């Protein structure tokens, strides 16, 4: 189906269902209940899930397949964002040109960065990409202020030219749209005490994510994808087999740069703003964490990793001392305070601490990431099903599972 084998098609189908039904799936708890704060089904966060999913899917094509670890991919995301916002200022608030130009500009930029950085491999390659990203950040932050808006960044303004759009009605602000459908418009569905939000922007981003995911599966299963795994495995053997590893690696770099640009363009399509912090080195590190946390070189891993990290960032950082006190109020006062004080460093702004611990645990105990975790659980269930039967399939993560 769709040129995929049965297993891949099933995976695509499951991911499609989950993304389409995400407003339900991510909102399991009724409004007003104590657990409602664990709901993730609000547009802003759902958009981030799929956009960072795209970012990580693309990153994994480079890192997962070729093994080249870039520490500068946020630069491409940022460049895509700036390109997109300029489309919104100059051309139209329709998101299509913004997204396309974001991909193209990020692609061109990654040709340059990739061409130079790929002269080295291993840690030197990583450092070169990091250096490029830092320079990009600095350029956006100060040197190129006329183009990037410096520290404050850019937003579409009422008096921008916008050649293709008709003049705004007095008092109206420019809103990102898809042929008139505002990215902010949402439909709310109330069932009992549950509230589900269906947001136009989310569905646009989700469809783009599904297309990106489909394309990634095709790349993984293609001769090109096999060559990228060969790059990771043994570049010498490639050369003496008549293959030139350089253009393969550069192509992977540019593809992943374009995915990053796509994510950056979509971010602008959702919130119509951009600032230099989008290119800061921590943003580049985050996509590395997402990919490793989910499972390097696996198809679904990066999406899971992106989801897990964005979920923690948004949900754990919202928990405050009051909420902690309400959770532990059943305990005697002294004990309650103690537990709250012990937990406090890990919540709110301290969510990075929690992320760090989770990340360490995963890397140490599940080197194959969340995907390996899922495979192990599946293996256990299978073993229980036919107790005394066949030994479970090896839990070792297959490279392209």
């Amino acid at each position, binding site marked *: 189906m769709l040129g995929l084998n049965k297993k891949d098609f099933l995976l695509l189908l499951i991911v499609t269902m989950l993304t389409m039904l995400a407003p339900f799936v991510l909102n399991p708890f009724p409004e007003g209940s104590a657990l409602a704060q664990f709901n993730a089904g609000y547009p802003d966060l759902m958009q981030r899930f799929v956009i960072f999913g795209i970012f990580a899917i693309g990153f994994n094509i480079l890192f997962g397949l070729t093994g080249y670890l870039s520490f500068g991919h946020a630069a491409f995301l940022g460049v895509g964002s700036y390109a997109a916002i300029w489309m919104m200022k100059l051309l139209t608030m329709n998101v299509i040109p913004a997204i396309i130009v974001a991909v193209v500009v990020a692609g061109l930029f990654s040709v340059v960065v990739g061409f130079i950085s790929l002269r080295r491999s291993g840690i030197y390659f990583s450092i070169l990409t990091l250096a490029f990203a830092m320079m990009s950040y600095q350029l956006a932050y100060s040197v190129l202020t006329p183009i990037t808006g410096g520290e404050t960044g850019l937003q579409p303004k009422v008096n921008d030219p916008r050649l293709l759009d008709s003049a705004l009605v007095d008092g109206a602000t420019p809103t990102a749209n898809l042929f008139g459908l505002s990215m902010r418009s949402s439909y709310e569905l109330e069932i009992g005490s549950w509230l589900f939000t269906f947001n136009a922007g989310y569905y646009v981003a989700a469809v783009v994510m599904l297309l990106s995911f489909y394309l990634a599966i095709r*790349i993984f*299963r293609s*001769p*090109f994808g096999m060559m990228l795994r060969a790059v990771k*495995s043994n570049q010498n*053997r490639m050369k*003496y*087999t*008549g*293959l030139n590893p350089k253009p393969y690696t550069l192509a992977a770099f540019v593809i992943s740069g374009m995915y990053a640009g796509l994510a950056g363009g979509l971010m602008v399509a959702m919130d119509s703003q951009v600032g230099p912090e989008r290119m800061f080195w921590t943003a580049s590190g985050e996509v590395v964490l997402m990919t490793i946390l989910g499972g390097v070189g696996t198809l679904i891993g990066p999406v899971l990793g992106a989801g897990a990290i964005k979920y923690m960032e948004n949900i754990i950082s919202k928990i405050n001392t009051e909420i902690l006190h309400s959770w532990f109020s059943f305990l005697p006062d002294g004990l309650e305070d103690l537990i709250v004080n012990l937990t406090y460093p890990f919540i709110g702004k301290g969510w990075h601490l929690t992320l760090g611990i989770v990340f360490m645990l995963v890397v140490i105990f599940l080197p194959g990431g969340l995907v390996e975790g899922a495979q192990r659980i599946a293996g256990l269930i299978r073993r229980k099903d036919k107790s005394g039967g066949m030994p479970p399939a090896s839990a070792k993560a297959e490279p392209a599972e």
Partner: protein
Amino acid sequence: MGILEVSGVNKRFGGLQALGDVNLDIVENTIHAIIGPNGAGKSTLLNCLIGKLDPDTGSVMFDGKPVLGLAPHQINQMGISRVFQTPEIFAELTVLENVVIPCFAKRDGPFRMHAYESVFHENELMDKAESILRDLNMHMKKEMHAGALSRGDKRRLEMAMCLVQEPKLLLLDEPTAGMARADTNNTIDLLKEIKEKRDITMVVIEHDMHVVFSLAEKISVLAQGSIIAEGLPQDIKGNPKVQEAYLGGAQL
């Protein structure tokens, strides 16, 4: 005029003269063995033929075209494949993938952006890869990761990767090292069979004299970086200079 002409090749590593004025003429469609003691420079010579090393001086012509200065992948595309002394394979890939990759390299050249088709829809190449695995008795291991193979199997896999490209010139650096006796004999038969079936020139480096004298039509003896003898197997067998250099006087 040979298919491969090596003339006046010198290579120094610091103070060590690894190759000293090596001349070699490999006749098309023959099996040519290069023998010599450890450290004689046999592997270094092959390295100079495939672009892994650049000799300090000298020239290498393949099929009438100069080889020196070309990148390794360009030299392979001219029709030279090599089996290494320590197997160079794609350890993380499956055995089948290891053999399919050279097929793609041969058909599509050094780079092709075929990112949308599926590998498994390339029936012609897949059939070719599977049939060479059958020839080498490795078909039942095709889904295994190449890194998990035994040492002898790795070597046979690498040979399959080279043979599937149908090279004009095949360089084999100790192809039977680490193989059991039976596998060694199979390998001899396989190489003979391939030689009979189609036009191919082979250069074999071997320590195992059984292999050398079963296969070679011509032998060159390398010692301390220089060719000290060259000729038909029976001539080499009786050559006292060779016995002196190679075996310290023992009978071959």
